[in-house]
């Protein structure tokens, strides 16, 4: 059972390794988006510092949302997903494996890179730490929730808009909690409450999302 989990994670990491360009490019995308905002908004340092947490979090959200496309689509197109539905372990477990691998290559590097970008916006150090912590708790939730949407959009039946609408309300709390944690840190206020809520959200998502995504996959492939 856990052998299958290991195989799935290993396989997906190997696939990402083989298309390293993909992973590197996702990071570059994150950098580019975060750098575009100053371009659009103008160079004033105070303004930039105020919007920094929001910009970085939105960039992270977008980057991780775009990366969702990679999660099932390729496996769907070449029939590998069918084989996973016929695997010898429960589908939910396989989804967990895929989500873990996906986060390792899309969420983790993003989280490690965020402080560097934040420096560009001249954020103070403790806000930086909180930013990383909030991303560490938030991005896995995004991946997990996103997996449901990604699974639903595979089939003809799942309307794209409907799923985005379904996923978005669940993304927004993460975004708000994340940014307000960083804002609080920048303002010198305690951030424990925010981070605790993020953790609760993550646990909740971890417990339910894989099974929802598994059900969505079954529907999409019928």
């Amino acid at each position, binding site marked *: 059972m856990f052998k299958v989990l290991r195989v*799935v994670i290993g396989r997906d990491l190997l*696939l990402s390794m083989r298309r390293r360009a993909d992973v590197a490019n996702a990071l570059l995308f994150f950098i580019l988006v975060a750098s575009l905002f100053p371009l659009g908004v103008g160079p004033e340092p105070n303004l930039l510092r105020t919007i920094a947490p929001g910009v970085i979090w939105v960039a992270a959200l977008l980057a991780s949302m775009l990366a969702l496309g990679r999660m099932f689509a390729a496996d769907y197109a070449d*029939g590998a997903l069918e*084989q996973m539905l*016929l695997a010898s372990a429960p589908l939910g477990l396989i989804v967990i494996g895929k989500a873990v691998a996906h986060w390792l290559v899309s969420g983790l590097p993003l989280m490690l890179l965020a402080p560097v970008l934040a420096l560009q916006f001249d954020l103070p150090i403790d806000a930086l730490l909180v930013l990383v912590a909030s991303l560490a708790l938030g991005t896995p939730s995004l991946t997990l929730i996103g997996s449901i949407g990604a699974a639903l959009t595979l089939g003809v039946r799942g309307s794209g808009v409907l799923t985005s609408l379904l996923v978005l309300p669940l993304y927004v709390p993460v975004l708000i909690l994340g940014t307000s944690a960083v804002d609080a840190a920048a303002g010198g206020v305690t951030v424990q409450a925010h981070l605790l809520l993020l953790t609760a959200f993550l646990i909740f998502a971890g417990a339910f999302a894989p099974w929802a995504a598994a059900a969505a996959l079954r529907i999409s492939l019928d």
Partner: protein
Amino acid sequence: MLEVVDLRCERGERALFDGLEFKLPAGALLRVAGANGSGKTSLLRILCGLALPARGDVRWQGESIRALREEYHRQLVYIGHAPAVKDELTGRENLAVSCALGGTPADAAVVGAALERVGLDGYADLPARHLSQGQRRRVALARLAACEATALWILDEPFTALDTTAIGCVQEMIAEHLERGGIVVFTSHQEVMGASITAYTIELGG
């Protein structure tokens, strides 16, 4: 034993087949024939449990496959239209992963032998992306050689895109599997299995 009870499949608004019943004992070979669009692929996907029938049930050793789930999967190899071969992985890696997923992990020796069996010796370490249409199909079919112990094989047009050597090889593997007491269900537009093996045939549509 694979058993199908009063199966009905609807696609769009038409019923493709209705009241389909058969039993396949160990060692049986079933060819599903029929014109294009007669519902062969649909039937095979129902047999695997990938699609739900409009009515009726599929049973494996007397139990409904919907109750068995993973237990049924462990005894099943399905090779569909899409070969499920990842472009980025080599033939070797593809095969190892698909065996492990199916619940019959194969070590390096088994994988190597299976690939050799389907005539891919020189290509085992090439990313599948560099393979031709027929070679990719061979990678998918190598799983048959690696998972000999799996009881039930369901193959959707296994002979497409293969050259004559490869067709012969697949025929051989199927024959051996039947001798071992395995069950094979396949679709094909040509009568390729030769006269030496008696196959049940279902003709769909009409």
